[in-house]
């Protein structure tokens, strides 16, 4: 019975997507909203029901299996569309359906006057379905369906307002960059499938555990890391995420903050025995995370677009998760994934509410002093910002970040130091944003009001962003370990906690960050323009990765392609044709009409034949 719920949870949003696409805009906007949000809500309910029964009576194996059908079965390889529910996917399922439902609810308000709302909800529900497939799949290839499915939904939604070329280009870029990672991941899958003849995760991990000699886990792990890094916008494939903010804000909240971008984290966590078998890969994961979190935090410091700040922040936070993964702190990564889903979705939605009210302006320097005009939004944003900054005790972000710092310390103190630096920067940039947008002098007069459909999800998420962290606390504060307990069948018990000064450091650094931000951008002193020195410009453009790729890869590729537009091989066939025509002209010239010439040809032929005869 419970197993049947798994496909049902996926099916609800899928069906809704189907209905919405087929209706093709002939339904009233309200109906689209209801179907879209309602289906995900239903999924969330079912997920809750499933979670309840799962938690109440864990199966002997700790996993709920549901093989749907055999997908491909050929000589030497077979794969099934199969779902499985274990603690990890349980957590993900709850995040996806729960946060997803809230965001869709919010979107009902946010998008209510868009003429293409049916398409919007169609894509959104399709995304949720794909994400659930990704989460549930117990076979890497069916996981890949979800993996690419969320990618294409992301493409569709980033380019949702398609009349603007910039949006279309951003969407394309997002898809292509992630596709590069996907290709790497596919290579990894090919490698694994070749070695193991199956892509069933359990079977694969079993093989990894028993016979590492015949596998090439290092290569596979790196290839999969490539996929994960692209999907999760990690260095060096991170460039798409800031541009992806071109989509509607609920999209940014759902896809580019809460769920899809964390798929990489999920993948690595899901395959952690594979990575654990390859220490180099672990180091690489951690390093990727660290670099990303620092670079992205640096970029976020100087952005002027509120959504880009949040985008870089997302990259940075996922960098934390990667850091945790690389440090072997699996629970911490997942914990941060959950809390990040809460507070980042919240921040995006709050930002979206702000943007709606200030006539779709996104430049923070054109806002300012909005707190009195929109107290609800302000408080929600503040809650999210606090969680993001990891203000101690009160916020969910604090606990998850603390856990990561602990893990990093155990892995390598250098990682810890970097992470701490990142935390400091995080606090600065997000409170820079808070101070500039909500305090000080007002530059744009907000209009309208934030409706209930938007406010309620904001409130819910604000609560979650604050209180969501209490499910897992350091022993120093309170011995609550709900999450790691839940995940322990997968990841084993968490490592012991480090010295308590780590905790202090982790608590004080964000506070210091907030302080610095206050000094720099408090209402009186705040500069009204972004810093313009070279480093700032570099940081604002994402440290020049875009330019680099553009000059090294994209431009030469396209230029050469343009040069060869008419296909060199075609010239070859044209040359043959020209030769033939030349031969034809030659023979026509032979046909001069003069009988003496003709006789000459005959005589010449005869003489040649005679000579052939003489000297055979």
């Amino acid at each position: 019975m419970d197993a049947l719920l798994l496909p049902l949870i996926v099916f609800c949003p899928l069906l809704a997507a189907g209905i919405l696409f087929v209706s093709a805009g002939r339904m009233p906007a309200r109906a689209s909203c209801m179907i879209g949000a309602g289906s995900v809500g239903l999924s969330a309910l079912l997920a809750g029901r499933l979670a309840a029964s799962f938690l109440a009576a864990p199966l002997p194996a700790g996993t709920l299996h549901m093989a749907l059908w055999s997908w491909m079965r050929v000589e030497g390889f077979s794969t099934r569309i199969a779902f499985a529910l274990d603690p990890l996917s349980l957590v993900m399922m709850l995040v996806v359906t729960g946060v997803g439902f809230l965001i869709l609810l919010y979107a009902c308000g946010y998008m209510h006057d868009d003429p293409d709302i049916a398409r919007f909800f169609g894509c959104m529900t399709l995304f949720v379905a794909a994400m659930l497939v990704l989460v549930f799949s117990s076979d890497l290839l069916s996981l890949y369906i979800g993996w690419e499915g969320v990618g294409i939904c992301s493409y569709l939604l980033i380019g949702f307002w398609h009349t603007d070329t910039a949006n279309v280009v951003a969407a394309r870029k997002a898809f292509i960059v992630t596709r590069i990672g996907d290709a790497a991941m596919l290579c990894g899958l090919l490698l694994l499938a070749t070695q193991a003849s199956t892509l069933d995760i359990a079977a694969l991990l079993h093989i990894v555990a028993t016979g590492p000699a015949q596998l090439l886990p290092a290569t596979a792990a790196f290839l999969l890391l490539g996929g994960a890094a692209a999907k999760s916008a990690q260095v060096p494939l991170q460039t798409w995420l800031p541009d992806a903010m071109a989509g509607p804000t609920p999209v940014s909240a759902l896809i580019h903050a809460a769920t899809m971008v964390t798929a990489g984290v999920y993948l690595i966590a899901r395959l952690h025995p594979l990575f654990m078998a390859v220490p180099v890969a672990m180091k690489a994961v951690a390093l990727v995370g660290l670099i990303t979190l620092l670079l992205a935090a640096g970029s976020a410091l100087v952005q002027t677009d509120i959504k880009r700040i949040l985008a870089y922040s997302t990259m940075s936070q996922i960098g934390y998760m990667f850091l945790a993964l690389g440090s072997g702190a699996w629970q911490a990564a997942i914990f941060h994934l959950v809390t990040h889903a809460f507070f980042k979705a919240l921040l995006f939605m709050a930002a979206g509410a702000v943007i709606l009210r200030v006539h779709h302006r996104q430049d923070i320097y054109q806002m300012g002093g909005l707190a009195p005009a929109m107290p609800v939004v302000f408080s929600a944003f503040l809650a999210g910002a606090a969680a993001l900054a990891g203000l101690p005790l009160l916020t969910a972000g604090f606990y998850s970040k603390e856990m990561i710092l602990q893990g990093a310390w155990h892995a390598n103190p250098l990682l810890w130091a970097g992470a701490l630096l990142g935390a400091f920067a995080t606090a600065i940039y997000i409170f820079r944003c808070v101070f500039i947008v909500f305090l000080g002098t007002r530059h744009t007069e907000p209009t309208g009001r934030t409706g209930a459909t938007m406010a309620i999800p904001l409130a819910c998420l604000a609560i979650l962003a604050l209180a969501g962290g209490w499910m897992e606390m350091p022993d120093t504060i309170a011995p609550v370990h709900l999450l790691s307990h839940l995940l322990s069948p997968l990841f084993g018990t968490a490592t012991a906690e480090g010295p308590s000064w780590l905790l202090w450091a982790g608590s004080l650094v964000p506070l210091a960050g907030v302080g610095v931000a206050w000094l720099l951008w408090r209402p009186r002193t705040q500069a009204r323009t972004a810093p313009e020195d070279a480093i700032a410009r570099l940081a604002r453009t994402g440290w020049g990765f875009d330019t680099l790729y553009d000059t090294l890869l994209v431009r030469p590729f396209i230029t050469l392609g343009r040069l060869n537009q008419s296909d060199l091989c075609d010239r070859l066939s044209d040359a043959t044709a020209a030769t033939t025509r030349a031969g034809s002209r030659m023979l026509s010239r032979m046909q001069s009409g003069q009988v003496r010439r003709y006789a000459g040809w005959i005589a010449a032929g005869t003489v040649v034949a005679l000579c052939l005869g003489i000297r055979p």
Partner: protein
Amino acid sequence: MIALPALILLPATGGLTAWLSDRGRQASSLSWWVAITTILLQALLLLFITCTAEWGHGPWLAHFSTPWIPALGIAARMDMDGLSLVMLWLTTLLSFPCVILSARDVGEQPGLFHLLLLATIAGINGVFLATDLFLFFFFWELMLVPMYVLILQWGHEDRRRAAIKFFLFTQGSGLLMLVAILGLVILHQHATGIVTFDYFVLADTPLMPTTAMVLMLGFFVAFAVKLPVVPLHVWLPDTHTQAPTAGSVLLAGILLKTGGYGLIRFVALLFPEAAARFAPVALALGVAGILYGAWLSLAQDDMKRLIAYSSVSHLGFVLLGIFSGSPMGMRGAVVQMVAHGLSTGALFVIAGSLQDRLHTRDMRRMGGLWQALPHLSSVGLFFAIASLGLPGMGNFVGEFLTLLATWRVSPPMAILGTAGLVLSAVYSLTMVGRAFLGPPHAGQGTIHTPPPADFGPRQMTVLSLTMALLLLLGTYPQPVLDLSLPAPAHATPQPEGLHP
């Protein structure tokens, strides 16, 4: 089973009927109705064949044989295995969009148009069934002529060049194949004293490795031109671009598949050793095709040209699969062919419709069509996504299996092939972005030019069914996979009634 030749005669007769029904009366849609009835009957016939096939009696499902030119050991012999069946179904299914969508509004001489269309289909059916090498070659050539005329008569501005290029390339390479076929026949005669064109008998010809390689190359070139394989692809972009929509669909959807079919049946199975030795080169060619096609596809401004180059890229996977030397690769190649037939066929329908509406294929003069043509654009988007190999669509299954099979042979080739997937995303989305999305192009939708008509229910129904098929193939490809392994050339079937 008499139904096999019926599968060839039915479209031929139907075509003639359509032609005759059109005599004298202009602008009558009678011939269209005849054509649609014919392909419906063909579908029913194929269904009948599928149901009455000898399932469970070995890989060959149906047989037909009757002497044709006994003096030269030529028989009208047809045998059907799973591979043939899959290809026949693809042909039958794709002829529906051809006839329903693109042939409906053909301007002049609709009767002749339908005759040629159905004649081509008859020839293709013959190619997929013939197991006598002479008969095979006969059909192979026969399907070109009506296609040539189709392009010539109903093509676009540069049709003369395109049509003749198409014909010269395919026919010329066909002659090489003819020489190879006859070489095989003669060698068999030298070895056994028997002149025969029978596929199963010739498969047992003892051959020197070098000879086998030369003969195999003769076959390979013909099929490589048809498939097409870089650098023999140059006819394809021109032809696809200039052909009328139905022609493009037929070309891309089915005609190219005869190349893949031939590679499987007459290269990989007839000369297994030589094919195995040639495999590294073929794999390299396949990868070159994938990358080169994708690269040039990206550089095109002409929408049909873009799709044509994307075909080159997609069919590189077929080559990879066939020459990976494993059943898995073959199955993957077949799935890829079917999926490519559906998706690219549909894309050509869309490109053709766009040309009908906008009178241009130049994407520089398109843009923002979604607002004017939401249905058309969304369908176009769907098939573009399918063609970039999204899991869950048929193309992915094909590409994955071929790549997996290739990886076993040569991981670097597989990696390069995977890179093609990235490029396919690039050109597909570029096409979507330039044509359908973005701001509307200045030239269209103004007061002077009325907005073009969107797809109506007829088009949407057919294309939706195509989409459904593609999704079905992507999520449940097992029936095709099971069928698609070609029957070995040595398992000689017992033709009914001919030999005791």
